[in-house]
């Protein structure tokens, strides 16, 4: 009788502790997964605001309209609603830190183009995209280990084709 009572008590305690531990784990997981912390939400909001601003700037003509890396005030890579290869080349020549200032962000960015099937469209034979040195579209997470990473895709006419301009921004 005693041994039966003792076994029953031990089983209840195990269950209660296990449920508490499991519940805590679920709560922590949920909290992490959904980024519900106020700090995370602020960061994400900042990134989204900046990435929209950057994308709007890039699809514009920029200023002055025929800017180059030495006189640029606002970076825009289009002429007559099409990507200007000249402006794209000038953009790639702007030092990264300076380009961040011109794009109005403190975060790191990387811009590249893809076709309709999401294949990378090189900017030129030696340049896949423009942005933080050492980064490419496959290694941002492993190299940068970002706290937060956002992406925006714009459609744009480039060399007689519609292409996707993808912008990554992270902290």
């Amino acid at each position, binding site marked *: 009788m005693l041994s039966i009572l003792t076994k029953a008590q031990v089983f209840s305690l195990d269950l209660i502790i296990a449920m508490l531990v499991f519940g805590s784990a679920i709560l922590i997981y949920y909290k992490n997964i959904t980024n519900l912390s106020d700090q995370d939400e602020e960061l994400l909001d900042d990134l989204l605001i900046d990435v929209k601003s950057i994308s709007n700037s890039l699809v514009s003509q920029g200023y002055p309209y025929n800017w180059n890396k030495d006189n640029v005030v606002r970076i825009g890579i289009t002429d007559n609603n*099409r990507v200007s290869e000249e402006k794209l080349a000038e953009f790639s020549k702007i030092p990264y830190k300076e380009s961040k200032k011109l794009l109005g962000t403190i975060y790191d960015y990387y811009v590249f183009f893809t076709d309709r099937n999401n294949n990378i469209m090189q900017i030129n034979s030696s340049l896949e995209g423009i942005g933080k040195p050492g980064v490419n579209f496959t290694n941002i997470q492993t190299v940068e280990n970002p706290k937060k990473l956002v992406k925006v895709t714009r459609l744009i006419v480039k060399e*007689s*084709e*519609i292409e996707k301009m993808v912008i990554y921004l992270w902290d």
Partner: protein
Amino acid sequence: MGLKKGFFFTVDSIIGAGIITIGILLLYTFYIVEPSYTSLGYSSHDIINALSELKINEVNNPYVDELISTGEITNPENTILEQIGEFWALDKTDKAGNLTKEFTNDFIDENLGFGFYIEGEEIYSRIKSNDGISMTSKKMISGIQRYRTREGFTARAIATKVTKNTTEVFMINPEGSSHGPGTTADIIKKFYINSSDVIKATLFLTVHWGTSATPSNDFDLNGVPTNIGNPWLYTQEKDVTHIGFDFVDITNDVISGWNELKIKFLIQSDDHTHIHPGSKIIVEYESTGKFVPSKLVEKRFYFDNVLSKGGNNLNKATGAWSVLPIFVPKGVIIKNATLHIVGKDLKSFGIPDGVPEKGNVQLYLNDEKIEILNVTGTLNKTYDIKDSLGEGTNVVSVYLNCYPDYFFGEGETLLYSDPENDPEDSSYVEIEYEIIDTTKLQYGKIDVSLIESFDGSMSNGKSYTKDFGDYDIIESFIQVAQLDSGIVSVNANSQNVFTTPRPLATPSSIYIDSDYLIEGENNFDVSDSCSDCYILNETTLQYYVLIPSLVGYGQIFDTEEDAVSDAEERLNLLLGDYVKATQINKEVNPVGGVPSLWGPIIAEVRVWH
């Protein structure tokens, strides 16, 4: 024993919970959030902008290639958006939908739903559940009204054979002469009329003779006496000599082919008798054929044959002189330019002291010497004058045994020219040039030469205004008519095109390049430096116009007859009064399913979550 077992299980659970917690923390460490921000506004705005930017003829797309090869796409200049609209207007909604899908489906995030609409009608859509949030972007495009197509006929007309009334001016340039009572000068002008249908021919002459009020000159054309200067229309007395101007109808005297005008001057008293500016033969005739432009142009102008008789003594000395223009248009490269001069029976009594250059043969281009030489017997020389020519009207002056008003020829003096029978050994100027201004090479048009007289009465200076309307003018000339003549200036739209380069060197015709002409009213001004050297109202403006010989497809008519009639009417209106189409090639084109153009339509892209 049972209590010990219970504690053992509790420790197990704590260890297990610890492992799970560490696992979760490790998972957190490696977890990165990557929200893909896909704005509905961006998607709809970007895609409609791209469709309105890309043109059919620049995209590399198999479906578009197929539509072009099958004739479904007829205007490669359309943008993708316009082509979708055109398919919609032609009720080819399946093709509109396929084309839309081709250029949208892969570009809009697969998690989004979207649709393409024209005037609210769905052309293509990708259905996804709609959470109530959607964005729309619209573009206005030129529309083709649906269900408003029609069938009919349109026609064009080409004048394959034409007759035209054109006018040709044969120059009689200043020339002469004999000096001293009883001497004579016989001038023979030969000119070729390339038509058997002469509408009208007129001879104009200005003659400067001696002190007698009544000249003793004879004129005949093709052997028929010509009643010109009887009496003179205008006369002028100048330093006791006389000048007369007159014109006479010679329509019945000219013939098809070579014509010969003989002018016989008989000197009654002092001074020499010669031709002044204003002398010319104007022939209006009917001809056939279109303008055949040539990049390489070769023109030869012959001197008239001038035979001066007398020369028994210095008081009856002979001399033959003449001027001849060479016209150099703008926008050409001169390949060759030559003066070939043949003088016969040359012998002088000696060059008078008053003659600045001591030669009985004096040749000038404008005011530059070509050569001064002394010749007895025959002169037969060719000069390369290419490098001395300027743009516009250049004048060659030839003086044999004379330098007016000095005459010093012993016996007869002949400036020889017979373009009909002896063209190569005649006196002439010749120019060959290449047209490099390709705007002057116009094909498939009909060239017509027209001529108009200045109006009003004689004055110094004199102006004429002409609006050429829609005509293409390839070149024009002014034929200055005067009694006495000094240094003449001709301006076209305030730009000087000619000034007499030396005494007696105002040619019968002065060239005005089409570059000097403007749209609207053109002003031509002629004046003389000598105050009583009047410009007569018989001064003429001659211009060559090019008239198109075809009209393109016009409006669509319900019947072939109406379409052809319209094309013929448009062609005849275009040809005007100067050209008559004697053979017209008409082409009728049946037209079906022609969309009616109308105002803009709205294309719309909607994107939703």
